[in-house]
């Protein structure tokens, strides 16, 4: 260990039942931010990177961990998944005892995600569900859920730097940092004007039109700041013409994600915080306006 690393908070990144997507996302972070991160923290273990320590050593040694980051869902069913001859549940519990902060990286670690849909094993859980109160009694902070499929690297950095600096962050009722998840994916979407006037895009990838009615866009009911903190610093799903599929929410993944459920042509769910009656009356009126500018190609 280099001398200057002594005082840096130590991070362990555990991969439980995962597709590796959050690691991919993390490694695609903005280069300068990644440098700053590596200069400010000591990532002592990550299974996809070369580190001095192995998971086995970590479990045996009396090593203190500042931030335990977990990617993937947890199971105590040995038949389906093991690491170092132990279930993810056993490993998690051992590591939590050495840690100050526990952060769920991604929707699978937060709530079980896609793995929870696996019917042959009904014991697949997110961190909060997998741990009992006494398992987490040594933690300095409630579990932080960084939901998303995958998580934006900036959300990880922001959380880690905030916790390092202020020891504490405000969480919403689902355990997500308010600073990140109080926004909706709809905020900052370049299609807001189309949304207001009910001009729909009729296929993916167009610059024009909103994706709410026809393509299943969940932007108006999904807590995330994807349209404010852009992906790869340049774009978001909805800006590019792909509907938001609500990957930061508790119920992700839902069935028929690219469809808007409708009853007799009327959307079953309306944007958060609006009553259906109010929404339908405004939408019904807006729909009957035909604004030429919004029905033309932006670039002819």
């Amino acid at each position, binding site marked *: 260990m280099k001398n200057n690393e002594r005082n840096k908070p130590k991070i362990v990144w555990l991969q439980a039942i995962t597709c590796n997507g959050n690691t991919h996302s993390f490694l695609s972070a903005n280069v300068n931010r990644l440098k700053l991160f590596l200069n400010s923290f000591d990532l002592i273990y990550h299974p996809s990177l070369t580190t001095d320590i192995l998971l086995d050593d970590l479990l045996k040694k009396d090593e203190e961990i500042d931030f335990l980051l977990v990617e993937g869902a947890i199971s105590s069913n040995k038949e389906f998944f093991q690491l170092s001859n132990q279930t993810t549940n056993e490993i998690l519990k051992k590591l939590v005892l050495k840690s100050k902060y526990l952060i769920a990286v991604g929707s699978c670690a937060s709530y079980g995600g896609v793995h929870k849909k696996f019917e042959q094993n009904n014991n697949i859980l997110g961190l909060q569900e997998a741990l009992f109160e006494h398992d987490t009694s040594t933690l300095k902070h409630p579990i932080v859920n960084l939901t998303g499929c995958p998580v934006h690297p900036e959300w990880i950095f922001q959380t880690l730097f905030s916790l390092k600096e202020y020891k504490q962050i405000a969480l919403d009722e689902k355990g997500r940092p308010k600073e990140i998840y109080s926004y909706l994916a709809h905020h900052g979407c370049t299609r807001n004007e189309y949304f207001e006037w009910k001009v729909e895009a009729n296929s993916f990838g167009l610059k024009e039109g909103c994706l709410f009615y026809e393509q299943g866009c969940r932007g108006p009911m999904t807590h995330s700041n994807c349209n404010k903190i852009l992906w790869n610093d340049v774009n978001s799903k909805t800006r590019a013409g792909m509907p938001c599929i609500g990957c930061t929410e508790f119920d992700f993944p839902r069935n028929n994600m690219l469809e808007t459920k409708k009853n007799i042509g009327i959307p079953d769910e309306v944007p958060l915080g609006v009553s259906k009656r109010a929404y339908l009356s405004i939408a019904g009126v807006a*729909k009957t306006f035909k604004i030429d500018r919004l029905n033309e190609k932006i670039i002819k």
Partner: protein
Amino acid sequence: MSSKEEKKNSIIENALKLFSKKGFYNTTIPDIAKAMSMSVGNMYNYFKSKEELAKFAIKYSTNILATDLKKINEMDASSKEKIFLFTKKYLENVQKSPEIIEYFLRVYLSNREVFQEGCEGFLCVSEFVTEVMILLDEGAAKKEFRQQDFFPAFAMIMGALGGFAFLSGEQVLDKDIISYSDDVAENIYRALKYEK
């Protein structure tokens, strides 16, 4: 309600009667003023033009139906019962204040040019259309109605009711209009109902 608004409403009520009887173009502001025992000059303190009055009148008359349907929508009843209740209410309106329905059929639907500006699309009838949407949405969500496009479903309700009001206005029905209520409702319900 302010006294100005009350006055406005009573002008609208009188105008509705005249418009629905004589038609939009054959009714003049002096006609309406006369029915109100008001001076023509004073009339213009309330409405700038006959067109403006016509637009207020369509909002006024459909809002009566909207209020009825909203009350029914908020009831704890099956969607089928709601259709039956609303049909009855509608036919009662036809009997009690025929000018409201006649105005819709004879002026709003046949003089579209009057409503082109300021009443685009659903703008002047939106409260009522919204209540129909709520009725249909809930029925389909509860699987009492089958899935279909909105407009065919909407037309099934409004077409049947409007058509019946027309028959009543032409005085060709041989029984009291209310006595047809359940049969009309049954027809509407069958056009919408869920089939396994």
